[in-house]
């Protein structure tokens, strides 16, 4: 309907001209078609000039022209549409092009905006004031219907709303400029940051190199020390080994028990999952037992979730190996308890016998164990001067690690900022300034929240139930829309519109992962206009935001950039 209005505005001049004293047009004829209706005796069908009729057949409520042009003021040719079934006898000339030549019945709507109403609505006994405020399409008064002319009132109201809307759109345009400026500022920020990061990375790389050198130096220095101090600690080693063996045994037992418990739980879990899978397959979804349905839904969500690591056979083999006796693992405690080998290196040696996977684990445990011993006074704290690793090495390592981490973080940051600059932020980068902004609205039993370029969520108002993620921001797209625009202008209209796609939200019972398409229209204030569940768990939000307004207030169109088709 709005499209028709728009079309007509282009002809506003023509209307004014027509009003200036031309002969009256037949009922329902718009000014741009007036020229076809001038012949006082014969009418020539507009798209089928070979068909000529006496003028008395004009608007006689019988469809003669294959293009319906002889009935501009009645519904007689309304069936000439690809939406209707057809037979050869629809029109006299079956071979002719039978597409309607006229856009509809022309309502003059004096005092308001002239417009066309579909022929199907002519003389059907309904006053379609929202299109035809003058009620002129019900001229036959079928069933006694009288449609008074309401154009003065409707026009006045419309003007008021329209002015407000224009004003609002003007504001929206200004707001958009602000947003664009903000976006520019943010972009600049990113670019600046990138520059800084470049410098920082250079510095960090240098630092890493220095620390690497430092570490190798410290290690070289400390090696000798370790050997020396080892020699001094003979005797205590025996105790340590004894304790270590005891501790290792404890650990092994615990590990074994834990593994058994794990296996038992895993079996039970599997049983339970099989049970629930069967339950889900066999229950009757039509019998809407809320309890059952909720349970199935929860199961679905559970089943759809990332299950964590699958049981890993290799891992299990390692575990099995570890819980075997130490001897089987090539570790003979006695050898260490009695012998006088290089005890200081025991921990290393011992560790080296272990399977590679277990090595670091045992190593770590031993370290912890050692600390425990020290803390409890069993072992002297000699780490400063001796032990598996000297404090200075550890410190050097830590420093290097920290420096490397910094460097990594900086590099990642560069990548992020780079991709940020590459990303599509919409026209003029404008969505950059919306990122993270959240708006929400209540609809039905839910509160919906949209965080621009982040995520959409749904929260039940009925108490209980947390937030449901309806999708995480994925990309920007252009989509074609065809929607009504109410008087307040809060609607998408017709044409290409920017849309934000949110994907991979929470999994939906008996359905897909939730996803949301946020279609944007021009508005002064960011606001959710309409929420629709288009398909199960696939949502569509119609949202107003100044971000997509163009200078004159219409929504930003596609690559062509024209918003004319909206109004």
């Amino acid at each position, binding site marked *: 309907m709005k499209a028709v209005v728009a079309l007509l505005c282009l002809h506003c001049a023509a209307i004014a001209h027509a009003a200036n004293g031309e002969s009256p047009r037949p009922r329902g004829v718009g000014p741009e078609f007036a020229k076809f209706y001038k012949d006082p005796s014969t009418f020539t069908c507009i798209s089928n000039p070979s068909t000529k009729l006496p003028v008395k057949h004009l608007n006689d409520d019988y469809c003669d022209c294959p293009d319906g042009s002889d009935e501009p003021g009645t519904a007689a040719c309304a069936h000439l549409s690809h939406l209707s079934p057809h037979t050869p006898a629809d029109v006299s000339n079956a071979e002719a092009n039978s597409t309607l030549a006229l856009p509809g019945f022309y309502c003059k709507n004096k005092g308001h905006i002239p417009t066309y109403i579909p022929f199907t609505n002519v003389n059907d006994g*309904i006053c379609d004031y929202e299109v035809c405020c003058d009620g002129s399409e019900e001229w036959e008064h079928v069933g006694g219907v009288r449609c008074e002319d309401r154009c003065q009132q409707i026009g006045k109201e419309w003007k008021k709303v329209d002015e407000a809307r224009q004003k609002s759109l003007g504001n929206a345009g200004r707001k958009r400029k602000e947003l664009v400026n903000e976006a520019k500022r943010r972009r600049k920020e990113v670019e600046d940051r990138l520059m800084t990061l470049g410098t920082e990375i250079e510095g960090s790389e240098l630092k890493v190199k220095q620390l690497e050198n430092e570490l190798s130096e410290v290690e070289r220095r400390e090696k000798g020390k370790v050997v020396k101090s080892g020699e001094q600690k003979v005797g205590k080693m025996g105790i340590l080994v004894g304790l270590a063996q005891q501790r290792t045994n404890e650990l092994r037992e615990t590990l074994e028990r834990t593994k058994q418990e794990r296996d038992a739980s895993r079996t039970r879990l599997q049983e339970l999952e099989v049970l629930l899978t069967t339950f889900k397959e066999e229950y009757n979804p039509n019998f809407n037992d809320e309890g059952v349905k909720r349970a199935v839904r929860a199961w679905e969500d559970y089943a759809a979730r990332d299950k964590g690591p699958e049981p890993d056979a290799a891992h299990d083999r390692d575990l099995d190996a570890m819980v075997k006796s130490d001897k089987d693992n090539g570790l003979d405690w006695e050898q260490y308890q009695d012998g006088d080998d290089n005890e200081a290196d025991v921990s290393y040696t011992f560790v080296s016998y272990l399977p590679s996977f277990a090595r670091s684990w045992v190593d770590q445990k031993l370290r912890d164990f050692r600390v425990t011993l020290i803390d409890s006074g069993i072992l002297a704290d000699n780490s400063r001067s001796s032990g598996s690793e000297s404090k200075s090495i550890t410190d050097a390592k830590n420093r290097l690690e920290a420096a490397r981490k910094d460097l990594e973080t900086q590099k990642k940051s560069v990548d992020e900022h780079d991709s940020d600059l590459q990303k599509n932020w919409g026209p003029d980068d404008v969505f950059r300034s919306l990122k993270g902004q959240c708006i929400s609205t209540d609809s039905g039993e839910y509160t919906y929240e949209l965080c621009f370029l982040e995520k959409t969520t749904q929260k039940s108002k009925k108490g209980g139930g947390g937030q449901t993620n309806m999708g995480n921001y994925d990309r920007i797209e252009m989509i074609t829309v065809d929607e009504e625009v109410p008087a307040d202008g809060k609607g998408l209209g017709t044409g290409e519109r920017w849309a934000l796609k949110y994907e991979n939200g929470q999994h939906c019972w008996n359905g897909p992962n939730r996803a949301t398409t946020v279609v944007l229209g021009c508005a002064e204030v960011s606001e959710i206009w309409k929420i629709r569940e288009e398909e199960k768990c696939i949502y569509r939000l119609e949202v107003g935001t100044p971000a997509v307004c163009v200078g004159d207030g219409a929504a930003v169109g596609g690559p062509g950039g024209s918003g004319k088709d909206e109004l």
Partner: protein
Amino acid sequence: MVKHENFKTCAQSGFCKRNRAYGDTALSSSNWAAPYSLDPASVKFEKGILTGTVSKTIANTGEAVRLPLTVAFYESGTARVTIDEERRQKGEIELRHNSKAKKQRYNEAEKWAIVGGTTVSTGAATSKAAEKGTTKIVYGPASKFEAVIRHTPFGVEFKRDGETQVKLNDRGLLNMEHWRPKVDKPAPEKKEGEEEKKEGEEAVVVESDKEIAEDDGTWWDESFGGNTDSKPRGPEAVALDIEFPGYEHVYGAAEHAGPLSLKETRGGDGKYSEPYRLYNSDVFEYEMDSPMTLYGAIPFMQAQKKDSTVGVFWLNAAETWIDITKTTTSANPLSFGIGSSVTTQTHWISEAGLLDVFVFLGPKPQDVIGAYTELTGYTQLPQQFAIAYHQCRWNYVTDEDVRDVDRKFDKHRIPYDVIWLDIEYTEGKKYFTWDPMTFPDPLGMNKQLDEHERKLVAIIDPHIKNKGNYPIVEELKSKDLAVHNKDDNIYEGWCWPGSSYWIDCFSPKGREWWKGLFRYDKFRGTMKNVFIWNDMNEPSVFNGPETTMPKDNLHHDHWEHRDVHNINGMTLVNATFDALLARDKVEDKHHVRPFVLTRSFYSGSQRLGAMWTGDNQAAWPHLEASIPMLLSMGVSGFPFAGADVGGFFGNPSKELLTRWYQAGAFYPFFRGHAHIDTRRREPYLAGEPYTQIITQALRLRYALLPAWYTAFHEASVSGAPIIRPNYYVHPGDEKGFGIDDQFYLGSYGLLAKPVTKEGQEGQDIYLADKEKYYDYFDFWTYEGPGTVNVAAPLDTIPFLMQGGHIIPRRDRPRRSSGLMRYDPFTLVVVLGNSGDAEGTLYLDDGESFDFQEGGYIHRRFSYASSTSTLMSEDLAAAAGKKTKEYLKQMEKVRVEKVIIVGAPAAWKGKGEVEVSEEQSGKISAARKVSLDWHDKEDGKAAWAVVRDPGVQIGSGWKIAFA
């Protein structure tokens, strides 16, 4: 997949198993003598009614059980055989478990099912010519019917014109399980002392019981699916064999998902091994081609042979099974099949109640259906919106959602009349409430719909949520209006709302209360354009045996649920229908006709509204099955039937959806519906070319609404089907008796065969008669008899017009059917071999009861080749109070166009016809109107158009072509 384990097979249903076994014993022994005989001394015939006593002899004791017999002969030519059991009738039995159940055999089925046609025949008389051992009654039109009652063993043969058509108990399978006390079996180890003697006596009885080898394992208690039926009255089944000699086809016994012509049920290639079952059930994901029970039961069966139709109606509301077998008999053993005929034998088995069977002797299909519907009532003449398109979904989730769908239909120029709300509109499944979050403004929504004369249908089910703070359930409980359990306390079961109680609509108080619930001030948010959908009324009970109520539940007057089960659904619809009548104020002159959709039904439900085939699936076989299912409903007196367009469960492909709309445009009840877990599929969402093709199908339905409405009117006065199978239209054409994938619309010779297979682009249509058939859309000419192939690409519905008819249409597309009220008509005159044609039009305001006071137009249009004249004659009965007013209202409604298909070549160059009208009893002077003639082309017929004859649809006129 249907869960077979949830539903009984015959072998799992004690009485069915017993009676099948009884039948097998009888048929396998050469010297079987049915133990039933009519005492000739007891026979009396008075005023069209024969009475007597049949006695059943118990084999081992010789004891005789007295069974009172009544055979009534009605004016219509219908005969009725009723057998009761004297001891139960008198209440001289003892119930087990201290049950409060009624002792009689259920004798109130007729109270619900029968509304007319029981005027006793004055012409029926006993015949002296009866052979020895028989009693003969001559009755029926021109006394052409005879009932020959054989005394021993008791049996009845019904003859027409001296030829036997229907035989009762010819095979001796009649079985009425008489009342007997339960005799406990002796303990395996006998105790010492006093008790021994006593137990010993019992043991004798038991043993003698065993002599007759009756399986008593299911006489007393029966368990299924964890539920035990206490059966306080013990075994009480009734069974009878009914034979149709020389009849190869039987139809009816709805509702089943299978072919129209019923299959044999005792095994064998392509046959069923289970009997057809009638036990109204909520069968989840029901399967195709199966005798399994479904949601409704119509125990009415017709038998068809060349030029003869007969039928029986088994009036019993309990669980019923029907076995069907066919035997070929050869007239001459040497003739190798020539002259052989097939006889259909049926075995009817019900768990309880009277033996009460009506016999119809035809001879035409309409005679049988007409007699049956005279008894059980004609289909209600629905409001016009009800036969237009309905848009449903489980669920439109908010009132704004409804408004949005409403706007979208208009935006896409797709007509529709009704939008529906499934259970989610309620607040927590509490009927008569609206969810305040999602439907904050139901009245605003209804008003928007009303702006374009559209309606809302809201669901109301019989289960009432058992939850505090819900006034409806409080009242239900305090007034004690719910169904009781076997202990006579309120019965609690599980359904949509969770724990629930069930309104007992058998109770007059219950119905009265139900009636009050629909008042606009009680069911707030409803207004005049809101109508009702009764679902789950089998009743569906999620935790009950076979998803329904325990059979030992008690209804009003202490009838057991077992007695009334199949009628239960109808009682709810009946109460809802009355409620919709009662909700308008008495002083409101413009009462509108109720509309109620039901899933469960019984014989008689047709009086109250529409049915649909329940929860089908979005799969091609379900589309295909919908046609025989609806044809079966049509010939069962309940023609206002439909299947969910698109399929309820699952997502249809766009092709399937499109084909389904093309088929649905020919369903008497035309509704798109979808499960809550499916994707949205409103026609405008399909995308091109699908949306366009679907819209064409919808607009075809709307253009033909005058024909549909006339067909509904015909059904409302004669019981005639609305879509008609081949056998109904051509009862002399044996080749067409099994055809159930094509059908005729009303009496218009409109023959449709919607495509129901994926990727199919052509359709073989069977033409039964030597007549011309024209393609509806391009006038291509076909000639019967035989099979013709009609092209059927996706955008085309195979749809032909048989020569000899006149079809009324309204071609102007509108937003809803209500907005077509004053649109002009197009008449399509289809000339066939005779050159003559005729058709009727019935028209009224499409909503009120004014038609009962003469507020209607009923015309007969006819074209006579002999005079080359098309004329309109009045078929209306004498004028009533509202006649003038209605005619005045319609006086501007004219015929805008007459299309003649198969127009005579003689009209070439004619250019004009003469039109004369009848005005206040006089014929006006002739006017000339132009005629546009087109010659035939390729295979397409010649056609002509009379340009705007301008004659009134409601008055007499004549158009002269010569």
